[in-house]
Each structure stands twice: as C-alpha cells, then as structure tokens.
C-alpha cells in the first residue's frame, strides 16, 4: 500500500481536449490517466444573455500523481487547456489518503530526501 503523498487531479475540459490535457500532464511527469465522459450544466439564462454557447459535452481527466508534481501539472493544465483556451478546462486536486495497484516506482523516504 502506498505511503507516499499522492494527489488525484481532476481536469474537466471540453470534449476532444482530454488528449491535450494528458499530454500537458505527461510532460510534467504524470504517467497516465483515465478519461471519463461527462455533460456540463451551464447557466442557460446567462448563455442566452451573453450569446455564448457553452459546449455541454465534457471530458474529465483523472490523474493520480506524486504530491511533489502537483504544482507543475496544475500550472501546465492551466496553460494548455485552461479557461482561456479552447479547452475551457478547470483543474483541481484532492488529497489521496491511501492507494493500491500503482505501478510507478515506490520511493522510500530516504530517496525523497536525497532528491530534495
């Protein structure tokens, strides 16, 4: 069972932008992720008022990462698929209590300290 600090990143993007999100995360050290299909619920009144169409088709990219990569990956997601991009994505992270089944190498506390 994993003892090292892990974070679960959820990145919600417009449909078709999950690959871009995953590429951005991988460049920063993420190993893999899982894509869920979802439907966004925008404020329809605001859409009409501002004459903006918000695509309801969304994809959620779920990525499990070591805690030390969190900042880099969140910044990369903001840059590549953030609200100011066609991906119109938002990303947030949740603290993982425990995890099993991960394949990326486990690090001992000594190794982590040496790296820092």
């Amino acid at each position, binding site marked *: *069972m*994993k003892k090292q600090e892990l974070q679960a990143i959820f990145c919600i993007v417009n449909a078709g932008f999950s*690959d871009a999100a995953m590429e951005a995360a991988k460049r920063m050290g993420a190993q893999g992720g*899982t*894509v869920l299909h979802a439907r966004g619920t925008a404020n329809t009144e605001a859409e009409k008022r501002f004459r903006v169409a918000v695509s309801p088709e969304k994809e959620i990219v779920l990525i*499990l990462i070591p805690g030390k990569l969190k900042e880099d990956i969140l910044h990369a997601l903001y840059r590549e698929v953030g609200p100011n991009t066609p991906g119109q994505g938002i990303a947030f992270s949740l603290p993982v*209590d*425990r995890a*099993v089944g991960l394949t990326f190498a486990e690090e001992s506390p000594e190794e982590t300290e040496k790296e820092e």
Partner: protein
Amino acid sequence: MKRILENAKPNGEEHRGRDAGRPGERRTNAVPTQALPKLMLLVSVVPRAKADLYLTLIQGFSVNLQLSLAAEGTASGETLRLLGLSDAEKAVIFSVIRQDIAEEALRYLEEKFRTLKNGKGIAFTVPMSSVIGVAVYRFLSNSGKGGVR
C-alpha cells in the same frame, strides 16, 4: 432543517457541533455525542469487463452507494504492454466507504488486482469532509438501523 454531519477528528476526538460549548464550559441541553466514523470516497479504476465483479466485491465492505462510470485509459500502447494490460476500456467506480473499513478494502482490492486475470487496476481513497442528513449518513456508513456492523 437538515443537519450537517462533519466527520470525526482523525484522533477520535469527540465531535463538537456548532451548538457545543467552548472547552471547559458546562454544556446544557447537550446531546451525548460519540465519534462518528469518517467517510471516504473510494475510487477504483478497473477494466470495464470486470466492473460488475469489483462492484460486488466492494459492496461486501458495508458499502451501500456505488457509482460506476465508463472510462478510457490514456496509457500508451508501449506502457500498456509493459503493464500487461490488453485494452484501454476502463470503468471508474466511486464508492462511499467508512474509514475504519477502507484500509481493509484497499488491501483486499490490492490482492485482487494482483491475482485476478485481466483484473489489474488501481484504487485510492479520498477523505470526505461533510455529509448532510442523518439518514443519508446512516445509509452511507451502513450504521444504525439495518446496518450490518
């Protein structure tokens, strides 16, 4: 009005509600409270073909609410080959589980990920901070009336 149940402190300290007095203060009309088991969100990413099996396995850990969603893995072909995975079709299962059972469930899942043929996956738990409604809490934690534990 619904009551918001905040999870018990990790060290088992008694939860003090909004109406609870300050430390040292004599509490009047205080309802005797005891530490409520924390709830966790157990997230399991498993092969889609095995989703029903894992749903049944997790249900055995006093889990009353589960959501299963179809998903796709993003690992490259090379990575998939190295991990011994054959396809990218996944299911993500969200289960609400009590903290005192979560560790046991994770260990069980870890063993199943290792031993089940084409059953590799990952699972992790995320703490939940609040839940609204006593009946909902009892349902989610499988405690009180009808609970098996």
